[in-house]
């Protein structure tokens, strides 16, 4: 499951030297130019799908750019994009090159952060395309035009912005023409090919990458070796896998999970003191944290301008304004116990912020209920103390092999806690790291954090509470039927969050219909009704509940219902008798006439209202006015 746009960047070059982990290049953002072929061939109707008659490769390309933009605007808000067509009739670009049209909307540079408006207008470009931009295949004999070359040139120029150190720059090329220079012959052809490939090479030398997304998905229709293998500088192996990868990536682009991306950032650097002065340096990272929808900004609903909030402290007793209160208090033994802010911070300062190893325990000592909040990941660092990584790795391996975890005290002043350090071995699939190697800090509860509700609900009735072996066996066969084989925690996206983003997008883009987001977390109801599951379930049910369970349940509900019904009826009767009695105690008309209703209590007033079936809500004045209205006064 890849969630990043391009986790590996499969055209990117790697320097595979001995310099390992200190050299990770972490770009904060991406600049992308979507370079879309607009040649007539892109507009040829697709025959494979008869249902959608007007579907063309051009549509497919637009759709994936749109979905990619929609994803980018939420997950990588600071990415910048440009959309550029080549093989067009009209031209619009800074170099004034023929056959290249850079699409843009107002209040935006060619290469800029995507805006709702860009997405919205780009989404409907299809209708206006032929009139405003127009399709024209430029590479024909004798014209000496080379829109592909021009397109690459424009894209490269757009990406001149920003520093290579902090930005990943990419050109994503959409086309269905595997042989762009097929129409021409002779020395011009060779010349043009050479020029174009040289241009691509220059682009790569500038550390910009070019990704090609061919729109024909089969190898016979799009032969990458005809031309593009040279342009992209692919080796044989890459050529053979090219189409497979490309198809995967296209799919990825259109079904991406909306999620805000986090830059790999360490939480803090800790000193991990092991024993007798042996201390190493470790960094902590938040690998797992509940994701909330992005932060909100309060706006003035009239002007839609942001609001800033000022806080002021006011003395409740005198109403005086207080500058930065310096004391706090708590009521104890009916007295105000006052603490100064300094005292409180000194109180909290019980440890020097280090991670102190206390010892090791077998993993079985770590119970399932020993948990309070999401874990934190730790990874060694030699930045402060050289030799830290070596010690960390040695301990890590010992802990894994001996199946033990380390108990440590994490003395950060905001919340000092006893923690378990659980070693995690690296788990990786083909080309993706699933679990990084390191240790996880599990925050353990203290005795005061652990509750024992199971002890407090014991009741006197001597019920048998333990299952027999036969019942357990039935449970086991049920497990086999409802078995989630490769369950992974990443399997579900958060339906509330997905819904939030979808709605936000719909409102931002002024879409008419509110989107339906699929809730993946719902159980597979139909699947559960497969006969084998039903059989196992029934067997289990009969084993633990007895054969006549449903009947018994039904009866007990019925008896309960009738019991409560009679009770209610009896109660109602009693109440209404009482009510009428009270009601008749007053001369309502007289009271109303003389304005004396206000002397009655609310309960007495409600008598009238109940008898006349009027609403009972509201304050006394409301009740009185309601009575008066009822009497037409």
């Amino acid at each position, binding site marked *: 499951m890849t969630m990043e746009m391009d*986790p590996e960047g499969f055209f990117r070059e790697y320097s595979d030297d001995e*310099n390992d982990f200190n050299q990770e290049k972490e770009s904060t953002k991406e600049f992308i130019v979507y370079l879309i072929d607009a040649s007539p061939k892109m507009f040829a109707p697709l025959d494979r799908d008869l249902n959608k008659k007007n579907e063309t490769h051009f549509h497919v390309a637009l759709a994936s750019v749109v979905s990619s933009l929609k994803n980018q605007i939420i997950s990588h*808000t600071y990415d910048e994009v440009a959309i550029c067509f080549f093989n067009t009739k009209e031209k619009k670009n800074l170099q004034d090159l023929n056959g290249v049209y850079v699409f843009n909307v107002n209040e935006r540079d060619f290469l800029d*952060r995507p805006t709702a408006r860009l997405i919205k207008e780009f989404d409907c470009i299809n209708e206006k395309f032929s009139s405003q931009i127009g399709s024209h295949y430029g590479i024909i004999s004798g014209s000496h035009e080379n829109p592909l070359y021009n397109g690459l040139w424009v894209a490269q120029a757009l990406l001149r912005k920003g520093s290579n150190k902090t930005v990943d720059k990419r050109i994503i090329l959409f086309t269905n023409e595997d042989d762009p220079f097929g129409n021409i012959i002779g020395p011009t052809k060779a010349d043009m090919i050479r020029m174009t490939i040289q241009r691509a090479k220059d682009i790569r030398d500038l550390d910009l990458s070019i990704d090609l997304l061919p729109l024909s998905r089969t190898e016979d229709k799009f032969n990458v070796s005809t031309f593009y293998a040279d342009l992209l500088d692919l080796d044989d192996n890459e050529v053979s896998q090219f189409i497979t990868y490309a198809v995967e990536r296209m799919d990825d682009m259109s079904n991406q999970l909306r999620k805000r991306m986090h830059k*790999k950032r360490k939480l803090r650097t800790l000193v991990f003191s092991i024993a007798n002065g042996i201390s190493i340096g470790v960094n902590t*990272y938040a690998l*797992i944290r509940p994701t909330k*929808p992005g932060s909100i900004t309060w*706006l*003035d*609903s009239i002007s*839609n301008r*942001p609001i800033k909030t000022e*806080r*002021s402290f006011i003395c409740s007793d005198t109403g005086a304004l207080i500058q930065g*209160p310096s004391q*706090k208090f708590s009521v104890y*033994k009916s007295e105000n116990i006052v603490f100064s802010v300094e005292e409180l911070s000194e109180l*909290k300062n*019980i440890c020097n912020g280090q991670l102190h190893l*206390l010892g*090791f*325990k077998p993993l079985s*000592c770590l119970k399932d209920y020993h*948990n*309070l909040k999401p874990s934190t*990941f730790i990874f060694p660092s030699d930045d*402060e*103390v*050289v030799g830290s990584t070596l010690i960390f*790795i040695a301990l890590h391996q*010992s802990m894994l092999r001996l199946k*033990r975890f380390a*108990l440590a005290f994490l003395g950060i002043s905001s919340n000092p806690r006893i923690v378990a350090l659980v070693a995690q071995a690296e788990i990786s699939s083909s080309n993706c790291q699933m679990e990084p190697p390191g240790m996880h800090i*599990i925050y353990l*509860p*203290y*005795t*005061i954090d*652990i509750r024992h509700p*199971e002890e407090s609900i014991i*009741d006197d009735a001597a019920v048998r509470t*333990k299952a027999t072996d036969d*019942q*357990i066996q039935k449970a086991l066969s049920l*497990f086999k039927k409802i*078995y989630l*084989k490769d*369950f992974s925690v*990443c399997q579900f996206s*958060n339906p509330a969050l997905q819904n*939030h983003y979808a709605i936000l997008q719909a409102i*931002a883009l002024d879409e008419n219909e509110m989107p339906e987001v699929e809730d993946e977390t*719902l*159980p597979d*109801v139909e699947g559960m009704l497969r006969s084998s599951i*039903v059989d196992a379930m029934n067997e289990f049910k009969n084993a*633990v*509940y*007895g054969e006549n369970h449903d009947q018994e349940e039904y009866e007990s509900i019925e008896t309960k219902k009738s019991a409560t019904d009679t009770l209610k009826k009896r109660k109602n009767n009693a109440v209404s008798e009482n009510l009428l009695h009270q009601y008749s105690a007053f001369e309502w008309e007289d009271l109303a006439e003389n304005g004396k209703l206000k002397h009655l209590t609310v309960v007495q007033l409600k008598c009238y209202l109940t008898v006349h079936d009027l609403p009972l809500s509201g304050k006394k004045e409301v009740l009185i006015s309601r009575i008066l209205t009822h009497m037409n006064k």
Partner: protein
Amino acid sequence: MARNKETLVLLLDVGPSMHNFLPEIEKLCSRLVQMKLVFNKNDEVGVVLFGTHDTDNDLANEIGGYQNLVVSQRLKVVNGDAVQSLENLPRGTTNVLDAIVVGMDMLIKKYGVTNKGKQRICLITNAMSPVKEPYDNAQQDQVDIISTKMKESRMKLECVIIKGNKNEAGIHIIVDKNERLLQKFSMKTTTKIVHVGNPTSILGAIRTRRIAPVTIFRGDLEMGTLMKIKIWVYKKTSEEKLPTLKYFTDKAPPSDKFATHEIKVDYLHKCFDDPNKVVPPEQRIKGYRYGPQVIPISSDEWDTVKFKPEKGVKLLGFTDASNIMRHHFMKDVNIFLPEPGNQKASIAVSAIARGMKETNKVAIVRCVWRNGQENVVIGVLTPNISSSDKIPDSFYFNALPFAEDVREFQFPSFSKLRPVYQPNAKQQEAADALVKMLDLAPSGSEESLNPDFTINPLLERYYHFLELKSRKNDAELPPLDASLKRIMEPDPDLLSQNQAIIDNFRSLFELKINTKKRRVSGKKVWEDIDTVLNETDYKTPNNASNELAVPRIGDLDPVKDFETMLERRDSSEWIIKAIECMKNYIFNILESSYDGDTFPKAIECLKSFRKGCIVEQEPKPFNQFLYNLHKIWGKTDLCNFINLMAFEGITLINKKEAVDSDATEEEAKLFLKRI
């Protein structure tokens, strides 16, 4: 309020064998009463001491017997005195175990059969005191009578048994006998027996804050549409935080008896563009970021479209426990209990829980605890098999992350790191020994620092200080109690027992403060370590004195170190080694350079390296190194170094300088230009 009030009798063994533990018991009990003062002000507490020299209790006065038992505090609503009296328990001289009867007598006399289920007796003893003879014969009867009475009034008994030194002759038998007696209680009544062994866990033997359990969900665990199990869900863990304190003001005149001393916090919303314009709170609207724009959406608008899942707990399926990583647990833990009194539900839960335990399976469930909840929770049920007949089996519930919650940061594989980061066999052995021997849960003895019996040092300190301040207004914050240090620092005994292992570990791993990296000032911690490490350097023998035996390129004078290595003639290996070391050294200081601070040093080294290679006629390693530098760093922020290199005229070693070189003079010049 009163509905929820508890009556507690503390039965404390103060006999001679308990004297060592009394300081901890004093702390525990006074904190227990103090927490009642803070959170359950209407609770009542009585204290009975047994094993005392004197005798003073109702039963002794009325019917005789019951010697050496003192009711030190009659049942009454908690107050500050109780906290103090518990802090100074008398040390007794004799032993008895009739305390339960006296405690029960106190409760029955006060309440008769009313107030059921809200009476609790806490017994703290080491069970080393023999039960007095006259009762010995009739023990069985007595236990029966007591437990029936306790059951009638639904009293709860909580026994904390301190496991002391059982080696004394005869004690063993007494302890066993006493324990059997208590076990009998637990068969018939609601009795919980807790064993603790060390002072630290005595402090946590009783939960000091009483919280009435509240369900977060009551209803069905839906297994498809066919079957439902009635369950109640409670919190199993919940973080107890430092109480939030209110801001204090003393602006009110001292004569004002009704002064609240509180500070009201007032929020004023102002227009960003015009700070003079105040926006009333109801005129505000939430804005959500979408790309560079902020989209205003009113809460009504959200309400109509937001995600509204239906209340319910649904089973998604079962899977192998190994598919769930321990570090994926997201929150505090809940417990799924079968509906009380519902045998069918208990059995169904029991069958599944025991089946899970047997086959290492877990269940995945989707939960919406209440109506109107705006999100769903996916969680894992793990079995909790009860060892008591009275407590049903149950499940623990841990929330799991969604796909969005997992951040896919990549980290280098340990196995692919350079050999310098890989422990050798000896080092690995030393680490194994450390992990094995610094053992907090040795088999056969009590697990140290078990979370269930470990108190929160911060809260403990806060409440202690609160108590001190309540007695004396200007009390100073006392230094951290030694009993709390035992939670925060490694046990000195454990360390000294394993001194040899720790020393061995320490001698095999070399630690050095990384001086190349410019550190953020004010990081005192690192400086502390610096001094510790420097001392170590000084002490460890194989550093300074053995310089000749194991030369290496150090930070002090790398050029000289390199030359020294080259000059050694006892083995031809030295040249290769020197070159290797120099390469690594230059590489490392460049890699860790900050704003070019190591460049001059690196240039010096590179010059010396080049000279050395010419003298030794070994041009290839140097040339290769230059190529590499250029290749790796030519396009990064270290390109400045490459430029500096060019400026200093450091280029390839050419054929003229060393015959083995592949580079001509021309090429060497070109190389400079290419930079």
